[in-house]
């Protein structure tokens, strides 16, 4: 690269010339954007790290949270699914770079084909993420929140998780959903949980082999309370938590779900944007825009963005699911 070799590339000249860094204007600006966006994501992940270090003894254990795999109901499959998502994204990165490579050789058909595969990969990833969110929001076991905001989960004598419906007692009581028009100062509430606090507590009393598992981690494992301690903690129960939302979640610390939704959501938004950009460029390739321009640099530029999205996922994968 250098000032002397680009004279045959008219498009590069139109784009602002090679410049001191040997990159065209468009490519430079894409890198500019990528560096600033990388810092944004670093900020998010560092904030996650901050909260996690702050509540290091109470943070949820990620591989207990993400245990679902399509068509494997009730089989705990920690991380298989996110690993699959990682492969999908890495593979779509490969097809993208193959498209860029074909662009260097001015092979229009090949560029279009690989771009198409990349778009498909992007859609599969987005679908996977939607499924992951669905499971996260729906929850699996349910938990109790205490007055102080702790989450109490339930396990049997062997430490295996027990879902609320396995022991909660159904009682002849009716709780009416609070709606805004009846509320004190217009407060409403979303859908009621399947059981009331009372039903869970009574059910707990009736099942002597169920124990409460606290949020606290000692020696890498969550502490399981004795029967007496469990009843004592349950005395301060105020909510039944099922699944996750931005206010509370059954997995543990409230910030965990907030960070999950925000970071994976922001990344998913980037993937979606990337798919849109890829589609636009794909049609331009089909229409022969770059063939006429005698340069497939636009493919290279969206390629940079797409690889960046993959790069971010690699870090999200590590810090959310592995570490």
């Amino acid at each position, binding site marked *: *690269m*250098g000032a002397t*070799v680009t004279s045959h*590339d008219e498009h590069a000249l139109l784009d602002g010339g090679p410049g*001191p*860094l*040997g*990159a065209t204007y468009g490519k430079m600006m894409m*890198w500019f954007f*990528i*560096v600033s966006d*990388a*810092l944004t994501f*670093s900020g998010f992940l*560092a904030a996650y*790290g*901050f909260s996690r*270090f*702050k*509540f*290091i*003894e*109470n943070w949820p254990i990620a*591989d207990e949270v993400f245990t679902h795999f399509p068509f494997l109901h009730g089989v705990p499959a920690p*991380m*298989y699914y996110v*690993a699959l998502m*990682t*492969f999908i994204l*890495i*593979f779509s990165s*490969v097809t*993208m*770079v*193959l498209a*860029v*490579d074909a662009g*260097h*050789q001015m092979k229009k058909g090949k560029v279009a084909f690989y771009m198409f595969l990349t778009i498909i990969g992007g859609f599969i990833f987005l679908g996977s993420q939607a499924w992951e969110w669905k499971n996260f929001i729906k929850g699996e076991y349910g938990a109790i929140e*205490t*007055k*102080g*905001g*702790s989450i109490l989960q339930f396990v049997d004598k062997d430490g295996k998780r027990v879902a609320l419906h396995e022991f909660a007692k159904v009682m002849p009581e009716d709780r009416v959903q609070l709606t805004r028009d009846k509320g004190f100062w217009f407060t409403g509430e979303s859908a009621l949980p399947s059981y009331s606090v009372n039903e869970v507590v009574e059910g707990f009393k009736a099942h002597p082999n169920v124990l409460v598992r606290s*949020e*606290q981690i000692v020696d*890498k494992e969550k502490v399981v309370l004795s029967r007496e301690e469990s009843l004592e903690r349950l005395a*301060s129960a105020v909510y039944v938590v099922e699944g996750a939302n931005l206010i509370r979640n059954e997995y543990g610390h409230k910030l965990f779900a907030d960070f999950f939704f925000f970071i994976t959501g922001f990344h998913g938004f980037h993937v979606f944007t990337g798919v849109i950009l890829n589609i636009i460029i794909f049609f331009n390739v089909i229409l022969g825009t770059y063939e006429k321009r005698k340069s497939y640099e636009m493919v*290279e530029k969206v*390629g940079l963005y797409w*690889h*960046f999205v*993959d*790069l971010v996922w*690699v*870090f999200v994968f*590590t810090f959310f*699911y*592995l*570490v």
Partner: protein
Amino acid sequence: MAHAHESNTKRIWVVFAILSVITTVEVALGIVKPDALFRAHFLSTSLLNWIFIILTIVKAYYIVWAFMHLEGETKGLRWSIVAPLVFLILYICFILLVEGDYVYEVYKTGQIKWNF
């Protein structure tokens, strides 16, 4: 561009293989969690976590160098992308994680009761 007409297909597949192997190793370690690594402590976190972080950085290197083709750019462009990122990310991680640990210590040993 000097490299414009040669094909890098072989290199691309090699990098894909490397990234796949690293991801597989990460997931396998994450599922097995060997006690020797999981319980060994080193610089505020487990040895296993350090392995994950290092493997991730290796993956990032291959994505940026091979896929984003930074290896073909000029030295000036390479440095102006990598240097600010490395510096600022290490910096923000350092201040936030140290601060987080400090707040944890205050909650744990100070007069404030927060975990009821």
